[in-house]
Every structure is written in structure tokens, then in C-alpha cells.
């Protein structure tokens, strides 16, 4: 179906699929406000299905992706605005924020690496999943140091971001975490930018805290990585 459109036509078609999918899923979320109606996960699922049905391979979707994400950089920089509005929260809760994010970063890295090593996966896969809770540029650098595979590391980052965005709100409800600061920090620590975007849909304070946690967890993960890699040596592969 798609081949006779040429790359320009395919790119337009991809944008024409993505934007309405976003509008549809977003309005669904805003109507029902259910955390499992995650905009990123559901939107991507709709689009992947459409691409498969239309026979468009991912490489033909890439130019459309590049056009649509051109504002991602400036948008993320904009996180400084809610962070600045809630700056008093930072000075008042500095220790709680640092402690929680450090704990979360360590757990996320340790559990992922421990389970994959125990499961007998090759070392390059284990080292690629290690930094999965941080933004892609951080993750790629950390994976490289320990001989992981950068594109696979990036795929794990996206998989974790999607899983955390999808399950995060629901899990926090189950655990009765209602405090907006705590919810935001949990989203940002585990699911980086995707979690931050999801937290912003809950509220501005959640978004500000998630953005902060995203930055801190990137730094903590880089710092903890050598310790986790060292601990892994004591884990047997089954």
C-alpha cells in the first residue's frame, strides 16, 4: 500500500496517523482519567498496529518521527519552569528527595541486572539493561562503559519508560501514595522523560518533581553503576 506514496507521502501519512492517534488517546485519558489509559503506551500501540497493517517498516517512520520530535529538546528544557515554581519544595525536602531517588535508582538498576544475569542472558544484554531507568543519552554512555550495546540500551530505556508510564499511576494508587511530590519523584526516577510527561498529565507539581527526579536519577545511576557491576560478579547464572 505505502510504497507507491514515495518517502514524502509516507512521512505525511505517518504524521497523519500519529497526530489523530494522540488526540484520540489524550481525550480518552482526559475523560476517564484512568492511569492505565496511558497516552504514550496506548498511542504507540495504535500507531504500530496501523504501520503493520499498512506494511510500513519502522525505517520509513523515522523521518516522520524526526519531524514530530523536533520540539522535544526545548520542551524538556521548559521543565525548569515548574521546577522554579516549586523551588521552595526543593529546599524544604532536599534530604527526602535525594534519599528516595538514590534508593529508587539503585533498586531499578540492581533488580534489572540481577534478574537478567540470573536468567542466563549474555553479558552484553545485562549491561544494556543496567541503565534502563535514565534518559537515552545517559543510558547509552553508561552501557558503552560496560560493553553493552547502545541501540539495545536505548530500546530498554523506551521499554521501561513505557512500562513505568503505563503502570506507575496504578501502582502508586495501590500503594496508597497520594502525595503529589512522592508520585512525581517515583515517575521520574524510574521512567525518565516518559514518566515525567505522564506525571505532568496528573498535575504540575507531580511534573516538576518528576523532572527533578529524572535529572537526579541520571546522576545517581552513573555513580552507582560500578558498584552494581561489581556486585553482579557474585550472582550466578542459572
Amino acid at each position, binding site marked *: 500500500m505505502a510504497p507507491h506514496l514515495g518517502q514524502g507521502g509516507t512521512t505525511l501519512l505517518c504524521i497523519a496517523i*500519529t497526530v489523530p492517534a*494522540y488526540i484520540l488517546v489524550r481525550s480518552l485519558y482526559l475523560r476517564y482519567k484512568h492511569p492505565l489509559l496511558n*497516552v*504514550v*503506551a496506548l*498511542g*504507540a500501540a495504535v*500507531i*504500530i498496529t496501523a504501520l503493520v497493517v499498512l506494511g510500513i517498516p*519502522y525505517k520509513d517512520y523515522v523521518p*516522520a*518521527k524526526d519531524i514530530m*520530535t523536533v*520540539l*522535544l*529538546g*526545548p*520542551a*524538556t*528544557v*521548559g521543565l*525548569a*519552569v515548574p521546577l*522554579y515554581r516549586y523551588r521552595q519544595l526543593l529546599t524544604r*525536602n532536599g534530604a*527526602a*528527595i535525594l534519599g*528516595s*531517588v538514590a534508593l529508587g535508582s539503585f*533498586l*531499578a538498576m*540492581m*533488580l*534489572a541486572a540481577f*534478574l*537478567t544475569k540470573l536468567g542466563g542472558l549474555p553479558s552484553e544484554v545485562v549491561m544494556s*539493561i543496567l541503565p534502563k531507568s535514565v*534518559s*537515552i*543519552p545517559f543510558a547509552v*554512555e553508561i552501557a558503552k562503559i560496560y560493553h553493552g550495546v547502545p541501540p*539495545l540500551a536505548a530500546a530498554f530505556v*523506551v*521499554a521501561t519508560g513505557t512500562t513505568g*508510564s503505563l503502570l*506507575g499511576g496504578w*501502582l*502508586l494508587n495501590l*500503594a496508597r*501514595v497520594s502525595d503529589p511530590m*512522592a508520585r512525581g*519523584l517515583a*515517575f521520574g*526516577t524510574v*521512567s525518565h*522523560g*516518559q514518566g515525567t*510527561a505522564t506525571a*505532568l498529565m496528573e498535575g504540575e507539581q507531580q511534573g516538576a518533581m518528576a523532572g527533578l527526579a529524572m*535529572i537526579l536519577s541520571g546522576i545517581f545511576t552513573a555513580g552507582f553503576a560500578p558498584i552494581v557491576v561489581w556486585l553482579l560478579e557474585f550472582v550466578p547464572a542459572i
Partner: protein
Amino acid sequence: MTQTLKALGQLAVLWLVYWCCDWFVTFTGLPVPATVLGVIVLFLLLVSGIVKLHHVQDAADLLLKHLVFFFIPVAVGLMEWGGVFYEHGLILLAAILVSTIVPVIAVGLATQRMQRRRG
């Protein structure tokens, strides 16, 4: 009209900060995402008063309202990795699920407890 122009001007400020950080990271080879550096730089500019909230807030609020949109095309990229996930499916699924669920709850509960104690 003036609203639109104002928002565009603010977008230019955000873009300039991002672009400078991106350039800096590429130039120095620092293993830090340009966006993360950008948030820190803009935050410091706001705290020091060099940039005021009204220089950036309309554009920032509008972009952040739709921040999830930008991650949808990124998540579509997962379709490329179906093979790896298929081959080692169960272990990877378990690893990703456990290492997402436990820290989300741990961070949420830890922060909430520490806040309540301060009360």
C-alpha cells in the same frame, strides 16, 4: 496576534538554551544529555533573575501540556526490537516489570513517609 508572537519569542529562548547546551555537550563530549543540562541551566538562569518567568512560561506551559506527544513516536521505535524481546521474552519481561514496579513503590512510599514524619 501579540499572544502568538510572545509565545514564539519565548520558544526562541527555550530553543536557544537547548541549542547552546546541545552544542556544549557535543563539543566537550560530556556524557550528559543536552536536555538535562538545559533544565539545570534554565533553572539557574531563573533563580539568578537573568531570565524572568514571563520570558519563558507561556511557551513552556504549552509545550509541557503536550510533552507526552513527543514520546509517542519514540515509543513506536520499540517495534524494531520485537526479535530480542521475543527471543529472551520471559526473562526480559520479568526483569523490566520487577525493576519498574519495586522502585516506583519504594520511591513513592519512602518520600511520603519522610514527609509525614516531618509533618
